[in-house]
């Protein structure tokens, strides 16, 4: 728990741009909401590694979104089923299912489709919000935060030292 907290604080306090951190949170949302062993998550992983996304924040926030995803799975399934059964989209899904990517994507499962769409929409919404929050934190709260006793204690701890290296 302490390790997670230190990792999170280190990432927030680091020199990295808010965009890189917000991008990490957005990708973690998609990874966490959708079944991990899915083809689209390979692409998400490639994006996370290729772009300068903060990997620590992605790894730390993933379990949180995975848990939310688990709790929201009935909702994902109902969203996914509605999308897959939308009469106007049927020809599109049929063509998509008959492509190699479509066949391996598992998007024809309501759970995968629903979680991906909800995850993508949430990720897009969260990206600017997270960016704004990180900027606000650094400008307004960082100095005050560092004055807290608990922060001073944390910074003196071996965990902090470990992650400072």
């Amino acid at each position, binding site marked *: 728990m302490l390790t997670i907290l230190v990792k999170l604080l280190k990432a927030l306090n680091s020199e990295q741009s808010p965009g890189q951190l917000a991008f990490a949170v957005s990708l973690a949302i998609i990874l966490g909401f959708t079944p991990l062993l899915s083809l689209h998550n390979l692409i998400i992983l490639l994006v996370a590694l290729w772009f300068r996304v903060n990997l620590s924040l992605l790894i730390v926030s993933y379990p949180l979104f995975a848990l939310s995803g688990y709790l929201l799975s009935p909702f994902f399934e109902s969203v996914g089923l509605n999308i897959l059964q939308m009469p106007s989209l049927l020809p599109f899904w*049929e063509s998509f299912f*008959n492509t190699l990517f479509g066949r391996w994507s598992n998007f024809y499962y309501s759970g995968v489709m629903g979680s991906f769409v909800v995850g993508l929409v949430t990720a897009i919404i969260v990206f600017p919000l997270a960016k704004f929050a990180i900027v606000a934190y650094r400008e307004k709260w960082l100095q005050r935060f560092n004055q807290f006793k608990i922060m001073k204690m944390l910074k003196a701890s071996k965990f902090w030292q470990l992650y400072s290296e």
Partner: protein
Amino acid sequence: MKIFRLWGVIAFFVIGLLLALIWYLVAPAIIANSIESVGSEALGAKVEVEQVDLALFPLRIEIDNLQAADPDQPMNNLFEVKQINFAVDSGALLWKKVLIDELTIDGVQLNTPRTSSGALEGGRATQQLADNIASVDLPEMTEDDIKQMVAKADLITTKRLNKLNKTQSKMQDYWKSALDKEANKKRVAGLEKEYKRLSKRAKDNKMNLLADRKAWKKLKKGIDKERKVISDLNKKLKTDKNKLKQQIASVRQGPKDDLNAIMGNMGLGNGVAGLSDKFLGPQFTPWIEKALAMTEGMTSSEDSTEDAPVYSTSQGQLVKFRDKQIFPDVLVKKLNLSGKDSQWQLSGVGSNLGYFPWLVGKPGKLDLDIAGDGQANLSIVSDWSSAEKMQTKVDSSIKQWQVSNMKLMQTDQGSWLVNSGELNSTLKGEFTLEKVNLKLSIKLSNPNITAPENLSGWQKILAKSLNQQKQLSVDVSATGSLKEPDIKVKSSIEKLFSAAIGAKVKQQAEKLKGKFTSAISEKVGDLSSLDGITGDFDQWSEQLKGNDDLLKKLKGGI
């Protein structure tokens, strides 16, 4: 600042390569494990695989020494296979389909001894609840016992009621959204408004008819489109209503079926006649039940009325779109089977065995021949012209086969074994998705039967009289539908049962019938309100009719 990191891409591909390598090394163990766990669960005894070899180019799998234990005799194998060998078409695999040109099963042996017990520790993971309520002793039951038994039982009525509720709720959701009053009103009102506008313009100036000809045409097209939607919905409404009515009828019939099932399970279904079912059924009917359930499973649990069918899976609902790769998910084009023992020789061929079978395009065939002291053969032809139409014919016979150690039945005291005798048997018939008609006839001449020790009362009388018979016959018939097959066992042993315990059973059956009926009614609750369920359909039908009448009137005016 750079936005890309090169090491990330390299790391991605290195991780990918490592995962592929790990998969290649671990895949044989995963395949072996899957065969063992799925096979053991299906059979109810250990299924073991010694080794699985996987070659990648071309993709070929070899399974060595597969043995499946006999659930009734765990120190024996039901069968053992030396080698299963097949190549998988990589092109088809790209489309997530397993296409096997030739599957060779070599070195089949039956009833071989095992070095360790093949019994599953703790039994199957999924044990049927219904099994628990079976008891071979004649029941002396109190009202509390009956209530408890009914409470424990997985009632047919409850299952049907749940299915009905699910269907009703799905239909209500569908129709509420399809007949969204506001949206429909808006669309029809839009067409009406346009009609009035154009009519007014035409009334003001006849020349406007020419100027507005495109708008009139568009309006006519719009009305036709809306009426086509209404017509399609009307058809679907009728189908859905009928489906719901059938399910309601099935729920109403439920308590009677439950009573028969519970009484039958206790050997009291038809008085004395039910006892053959009770005692011999577990020995002679499970394979028929399994074969029918497997066929029913192939039709899958499609539970949607939409264009693209929906199947329930562990990953949510699977929406099955039209597949342009028109061949089944699994297809074995040719199957070769061979094996021998000191006393017999097995050979078999199969062709076009696929899942989903209706996508194969040709009938699936399986022919098996066993030659030894006697002769046995099995022939199955299954023709699926579509997902909704199937006909399977079974023709099998066993002639002059000398049997030893064959289990006749199982009572609390132990197994009743046929030590020696000559077996003649036929299994003939056919089944479709709607109707099952199978008959199994078994004749055992000069049987020498060993009954369990420490028998008393009617079982002792039965054991003595069984050994005095020149021929025992057992006839199993399966009728009804695939979903709810009605499997009955009749036997020449019936007379012996009757002599041993007939009158007592009859009295007992009559006594318990009333008590069970009231316990079942209490559990399933009041079913009198079921008729009201279809009430919504009249309201929906009225709504569609109202819209259609208005559109018809508008069209008449154009």
